[in-house]
């Protein structure tokens, strides 16, 4: 056969195979509309899908073939797939500022009206979560769970070393004193320290506890070059390399190779269960993974503070992709999120705090019948949301991913002894302020707002320097709003 004949045959074969493949694809044979949801894998996810379909049947709603896409939850993948028109129907976001980025790109469907009529509007979840799900007064997502970043303590570890349980609140000095006591008792003298008091502390929470946020009151300027931030950086360095309360990046990398892949949250939980780390930072979403490591006696502590107790609060959310081919079917899952069936399953699985705080006060959540070792923990998480929880600061003038990258890089340089704390703080502030200036240059429509807010900031500063109070409405930064109220600086 001539070569042309062979090639023609191959072409025909491939054409037939392509049609065969197309008509055998699952979506063409599935009876229900398919909805893709980007999220974490695992039996709990599949169980949630099963419950969802049961709920659909109970509510006499038509069936939905919900599929979890476990491999595409990385934020950059969400963006790339989203702008390419092939995003999942339900897009996850764990941070309010990230949700704003997706919204700014037009990837999200405005849910306000349909949620109001469909029974999954803002009234069905905690009002504090509305800061995360709402943008300019419109609803763009529904919270799947709430989180507040506190510290879990393994009480068994403390008991084994004859140390008293740590108090629920600690100042920086108390944290350091107790930490020193722990690491000295836990590590044999003269040997390299392999057991640590805490896996990590949050620079954001620490500087907020000193009355400082990443941005000023009107979000117009970065304030990381403040001496309070320099103090925080120095403290973390000291705790990591001098008194060794915290593991360094190298220690953490080492933990990652200890064969401790017992949970999706990495090796820190395994080390925590083993008693090599006494306290781990995280939210109640860790409970599910901790349960797999045994019945640890747990307590929940607030992060160490310098005078103003606080903890980062947020919500894991699902938003509807603007290019979804099945928006009606996808919204049925958002309705399910508002149902008691969803919250019940969430409570049973220990994957997080239900967005509906009434459900979060349910006895089964506060005192899980099968897990008496956890009693008291969830209560503290829920209390913290209502008392000390503050979301990440969203700024209209700089993307969260950008300012996070800049401040992290400066922090890493400092921790690697490439610069002093002062230089790191200056580098972060200069970098972020340069980004703000760049945003204003690229988006001139923001300039007027920035100028108004800058003028207002000058007025706030003048008033504060005279010791006068300021109107709450002047303050844009969610942290400063709470801080000013707590200090009695509001008119």
């Amino acid at each position, binding site marked *: 056969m001539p070569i042309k004949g062979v090639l023609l045959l191959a072409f025909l074969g491939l054409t037939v195979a392509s049609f065969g493949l197309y008509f055998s694809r699952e979506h063409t044979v599935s009876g229900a509309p398919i909805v893709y949801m980007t999220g974490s894998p695992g039996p709990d996810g599949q169980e949630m899908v099963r419950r969802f379909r049961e709920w659909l049947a109970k509510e006499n709603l038509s069936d939905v073939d919900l599929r979890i896409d476990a491999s595409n939850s990385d934020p950059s993948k969400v963006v*790339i797939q989203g702008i390419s028109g092939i995003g999942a129907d339900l897009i996850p976001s764990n941070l309010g500022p990230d949700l704003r980025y997706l919204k700014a790109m037009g990837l999200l469907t405005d849910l306000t009206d349909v949620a109001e009529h469909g029974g999954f509007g803002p009234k069905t979840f905690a009002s504090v979560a509305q800061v995360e799900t709402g943008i300019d007064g419109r609803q763009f997502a529904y919270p799947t769970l709430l989180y507040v970043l506190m510290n879990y303590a393994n009480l068994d570890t403390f008991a084994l070393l004859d140390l008293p349980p740590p108090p629920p609140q600690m100042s920086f000095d108390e944290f350091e004193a107790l930490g020193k006591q722990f690491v000295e008792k836990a590590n044999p003298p003269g040997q390299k320290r392999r057991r640590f008091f805490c896996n990590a502390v949050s620079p954001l929470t620490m500087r907020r506890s000193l009355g400082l946020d990443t941005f000023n009151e009107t979000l117009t300027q970065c304030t990381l070059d403040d001496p309070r931030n320099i103090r925080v950086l120095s403290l973390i360095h000291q705790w990591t390399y001098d008194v060794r309360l915290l593991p360094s*990046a*190298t220690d953490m990398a*080492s933990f990652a190779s200890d064969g401790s892949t017992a949970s999706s949250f990495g090796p820190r939980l395994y080390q925590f269960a083993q008693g090599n780390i006494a306290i781990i930072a995280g939210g109640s979403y860790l409970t599910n993974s901790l349960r797999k490591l045994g019945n640890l006696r747990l307590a929940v502590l607030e992060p160490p503070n310098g005078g103003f107790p606080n903890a980062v609060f947020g919500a894991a959310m699902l938003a509807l992709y603007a290019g979804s081919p099945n928006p009606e079917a996808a919204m049925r899952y958002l309705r399910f999120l508002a149902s008691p069936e969803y919250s019940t399953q969430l409570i049973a699985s220990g994957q997080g705090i239900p967005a509906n705080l009434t459900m979060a006060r349910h006895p089964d959540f506060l005192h899980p019948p099968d897990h008496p070792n956890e009693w008291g923990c969830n209560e503290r998480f829920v209390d913290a949301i209502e008392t000390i929880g503050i979301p990440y600061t969203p700024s209209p003038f700089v993307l969260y991913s950008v300012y996070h990258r800049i401040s992290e890089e400066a922090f890493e340089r400092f921790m690697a002894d490439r610069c002093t704390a002062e230089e790191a703080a200056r580098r972060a502030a200069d970098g972020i302020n340069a980004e703000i200036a760049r945003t204003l240059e690229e988006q001139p429509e923001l300039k007027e707002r920035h100028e108004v807010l800058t003028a207002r900031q000058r007025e706030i500063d003048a008033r504060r320097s005279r010791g006068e109070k300021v109107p709450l409405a002047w303050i844009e930064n969610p942290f400063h709003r709470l801080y000013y109220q707590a200090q009695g600086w509001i008119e």
Partner: protein
Amino acid sequence: MKPSSVSFRALVVGLAFLLPNILGFLTFTLAPLFVSLAMAFTNWDLRLHNMFNGGEIKFVGLANFQRLLTLPDFWQYFGNTLFLMLGIPFSIAASLLTALLLSHQPKSPRRQAIPIILAGTGLSAGCGLLVAAGTAGSAFSLLIAGLFTLMFLGGASVGTGFYRTIYYLPNFTAGVATFLLWKKMYDPQTGPVNAAIQPALDRISALVTSAPSHSGTTLSWLMAGMSAVILFVGMRLVAARHAFDRTDYRPHRHQAAKRSVWRAGFVLAIAAGVFLLSRETPGFFAAAGGLKTPNWLTDYHWAKPALMIMGFWASIGSNNMLLYLAALGNVPKELQEAASIDGAGPLQRFVSITWPQLAPVTFFIIIMSVISGLQGGFEMARTMTQGGPGGATTTLSYFVFSEGFTTGRLGYASAIAWTLFAFVFAVTLLNWKFGNRAANE
């Protein structure tokens, strides 16, 4: 049928077969290339314009390039890229050495394989005994050292297709899988790399600690003296060789002078290196008492060398090795035989015959390595370090990605990509101008 209609028909048929490929190239390579060039001069931001947002895209001229070139971070990332490229000469040398070892065909492979099999069996038995005796660390070090030795010996003496396959294996493995493996290997506490290095460092530490306190200074003086001897003897040898090479034929005289200058430079570099080492010796002795293994990927200073070492490993069995293998097969045997008859040793044969014959391939490899070096580093950074610590492993390609999809500034990201292209183009031009001439001389 007229000849012209036949050739036209053949052209149409040929084009029809090529059409899918041409269409694919136009759609997925050429068109995006021009679009990205246009984007580099705009303010295209995903927040302004994408399939869901129809915001106006503005022409901003050279603003993106101006911003980029005045950004200190850009120069840091460019420096990182160049630093990682310092490994290229070593990688090329490694692939050449591997190809040389693998191109060696022994006369009686079976007989030469016997000692290797015996050595392997002995090594395995030794490791087994050490593990049984509870000294797994020593067994591991022995195993690693022995494995390398056996591989090199095996390549040198057997040089069969089996070894060629083994050396080429890393090229079959997916990059990300390899990077994850290396990430585990670089683990500072439990990784095999540090496990292999630590015993040696411990021994050096013990040796230094037990040495008399003045050893560092004494050794420093000895090395300084040695550098003087190298300089003196080396220059004498260069002068002697130059006298031997001297000729009245003008072109040859010029070449001989050039070679002598190179030789003198080489001797000078060696002597200077030894002298500089002698200056550092007392400091080394002072610090060597507590020698520690590096924190490879989490230490600012070690992260880049760690990636370079990994790249060096990958290059040993790379496509460059295949190119060298093919080129070595084309070196005329008659030349080698003639040189042997004239009394040339293996090193002389390599320097005077093999290496010049390999010059065109080496030139090609250098060009391709420099291009891929400037473009590279993204997968490694993304998988192993996320560009950290402190931006130490952020290369230009990783910077393109983060600006494009973390911040959504597609216009700016395109400007970075085209600036990178300009660097690649300029370096390639320089390579062509100077390297091509050198390769053909």
